[in-house]
């Protein structure tokens, strides 16, 4: 059963404005391909601690610090790999029943 609202997704990095913005663009492309209705925001790790998204995406050095922040935490190494992120999102969102 799909979520009856827009999915809240957070792309994180250290500074919260350059790398994470690139990751947000990659995630938006991947979500569009998956046909998922989602809002993607980007921020730094410290700010992320005060947020409650459905999905967090970032490099392992950051997602390790914020594990537990969201039901789904996706660790990636390539910020620009749309196909790789799309595959991970498909798998993890399906587990949650968020992909129709």
């Amino acid at each position: 059963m799909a979520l009856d609202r827009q999915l809240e997704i957070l792309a994180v990095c250290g500074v919260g404005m350059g790398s994470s913005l690139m990751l947000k663009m990659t995630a938006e492309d991947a979500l569009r391909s998956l046909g998922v209705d989602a809002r993607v925001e980007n921020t730094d790790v410290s700010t992320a601690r005060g947020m409650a998204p459905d999905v967090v995406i970032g490099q392992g050095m950051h997602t390790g610090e914020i594990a537990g922040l969201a039901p789904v935490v996706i660790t990636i190494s390539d910020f620009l790999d749309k196909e790789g992120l799309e595959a991970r999102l498909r798998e993890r969102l399906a587990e949650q029943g968020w992909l129709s």
Partner: protein
Amino acid sequence: MTVTVAADGVAAAGWREAVREAASALVGAGAAGEGYPDACVRVVEENGPYIVLAKGLALVHARPEEGGLAVRVGVTRLAAPVEFGHPDNDPVDLLLSFCTPDPGVHVGTLAALARALSAGLADRLRAAPDREGLARALKEALPDG
């Protein structure tokens, strides 16, 4: 709109020097203040080598308040690659650097850069024969470049 700077064959003994060189290009172009290169190094010291976004490619940047004066993007190609200590993407031979005076005004520029990188910009930069080729490839990737 987005002015670019390019440097080729830059010698760097390690990642700190590489980051400083890449950020200094922005200072030299008048787009960032004197403290920006050190701020870019501190980003990695404090947060880890996450700025290595993809294989061999780093995006050197810091917060606008660390000295961003204008939106600008630079590319620096190293004479020899350096290790950042990244678990997957080392060693780094290409550094993109960017600065912005404001957290909002650079969004279009970075979005264009992200799209261009997904479409193979890093390979085009690596194939560029010289500094002019690097500058041209980067310019083509950015809006109104």
